[in-house]
């Protein structure tokens, strides 16, 4: 199901008839059964639905970290699903930011070093990368925690570091997988507020997979994915209502 609610904006992400299965023979499970979805620049889209419905699989496919079986995915006009793996990796590094449920911070690195990693991957020199990383940490309210290693930070602080890391290379697509799942309610709200505040921008789109109904009001649209199909896409009319 393609949404056309935002015709004036070009689609940053365009998924067309996407099919993805796991396993073979009797154990084959088709997780995505012909997904059509457009996501626009400037919006924050929430992907919701029951567990095992294919939300994370769709997010992984759109992020180019999981191959699809059929269909096409274009990101920022680039046919990501048909790009060779090497070019896809480079494209991902230059245009995307990732926020994970389990944060996936490197435990041996300080907060600043963790945030600098995407820049180091882009071959930016370490002093410059660390300078930018510290500035980004300051933006997410962790300017006084730059030299802390993850184990000395709270869950909420770790997720803030992860957000800073996802944004430090100014990505045009931000993909977030259950960013509040490992946090308590209050911290989850704070993280989503932060994500809206520093993550959203007119030339960036944000996709968030979540099953946490308490954060639905942070999205611009909600796509409901059930049993491998998008069953409806709703625009948020006012805070907290769909």
């Amino acid at each position, binding site marked *: 199901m393609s949404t056309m609610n935002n015709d004036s904006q070009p689609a940053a992400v365009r998924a067309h008839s996407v099919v993805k299965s796991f396993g073979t023979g009797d154990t084959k499970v088709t997780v995505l059964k012909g997904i059509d979805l457009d996501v626009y620049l400037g919006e924050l889209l929430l992907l919701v639905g029951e567990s095992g419905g294919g939300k*994370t*699989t769709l*997010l*992984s496919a759109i*992020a180019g*970290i*999981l*191959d699809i079986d059929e269909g096409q995915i274009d990101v920022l006009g680039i046919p990501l699903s048909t790009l060779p793996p*090497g070019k896809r*990796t*480079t494209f*991902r*590094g*230059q245009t*995307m930011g*990732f926020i*994970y*449920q389990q944060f*996936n911070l*490197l*435990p*041996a*690195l300080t907060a600043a*070093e963790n945030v600098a*990693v*995407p820049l*180091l*991957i*882009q071959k930016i020199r*370490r002093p410059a990368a660390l300078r930018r990383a510290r500035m980004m940490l300051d933006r997410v309210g962790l300017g006084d925690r730059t030299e802390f290693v993850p184990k000395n930070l709270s869950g909420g602080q770790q997720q803030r570091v992860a957000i800073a*890391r996802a944004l430090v290379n100014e990505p045009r697509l931000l993909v977030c*997988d259950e960013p509040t799942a490992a946090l308590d309610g209050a911290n989850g709200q704070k993280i989503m507020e932060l994500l809206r505040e520093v993550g959203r921008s007119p030339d960036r789109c944000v996709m968030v997979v979540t099953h946490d109904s308490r954060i639905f009001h942070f999205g611009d649209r909600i796509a409901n994915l059930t049993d491998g199909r998008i069953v409806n896409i709703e625009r948020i009319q006012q805070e907290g209502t769909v």
Partner: protein
Amino acid sequence: MNYVALKMLFGDRAKYLMLLCGLTFAVMLIVQQGSIFWGLMMWSQASITNLNVPIWVTDPGITQVDEVKPIADTAVDRVRSVDGVEWAVPLYKGLLRARLANGEYHQITLTGLESATLIGRPAEVLEGRFEDILQPDSVVLDQWAVERMGGPTVVKVGTVFELNDKLARVVAIAKTQKSFTNIPVVYTTYERAIRYVPHERRTLSYVLAKAKDGLSVEDVIQRIQTQTGLGAFTAEEFGWKTMLWVLKNTGIGINFGTTILLGFIVGMAIAGQTFYLFTVENLRQFGALKAMGASTLTLARMILLQAFTVGLTGYGVGIGLATVFGSLTASGGSLPFVETWQLLLLVLVALLTICIVSATVSIVKLARLEPAIVFR
């Protein structure tokens, strides 16, 4: 990303130390066992190295230095007459029993040197004067003889004992390389040695010789063999011949070979497996890096850097520990321990190979890794 790779490696101190311990243990085990083995091999040719002469001439069927096959006394003159030979002297070498004043018997190796030149005498004398061997009934013992025959309180300069009911008086103690069998060595003159031993038709054990300066030793050896019909060998050649005999005819080759091979396999398996596990445990982290845009090549470089860093550190520490062990145990001469650069190079090559192999296995795993793992 080298910085990130090294911080990942050193960051988890417990994992790093475990990895380092595995590699250090592997290197230490191989170097220690290999050095003891090589030390034993050096001991097996101590009779050759202690005499320090370039050419050994004897029966062509000789298999090793301690298995003497007497040759005719005329051999000395025949060798001297070969063109290119600067000098040739006789050497007696044989087993005999010594009877001490306290009634104890000890088997000894009697070594008879030519009295005119004393060629083949040990280079270092610990006590007394070696030249006093020319006095009547005089003998010189090596330091191992003193140890084996009851210590310095029983045997010292001036001690008198019997060799085949004939008097022998100790005039000096010489320093020598310990031999494989550790049978005490008693030096005397060639002529006196012949008098000590029971009468035999042939008494000459070896002819020791040297090629004239500027001539090829191999050419001179070839001429000696052709003109005399005797076997002639360089000291090095004869040493290898002896060593190979020991390897083939004693259990040392198989026993030590098996130990070293097992040490090598176990050590390298520990090293490879530990490093592989280290990578597997960090798979999620590598997956996150891959998702963020790190290419497989970048990750491969990171893994190789980690492998070589920990490998070379383990190599250094392992060799250091093995060397300390060697210097502590070998200083008293009780354990053979010879650490050669060839062994160290071999271990380095083997270790780097195992690092490359385990890193490659990890890299292949990473190359196949779908970064989507980080969303699971």
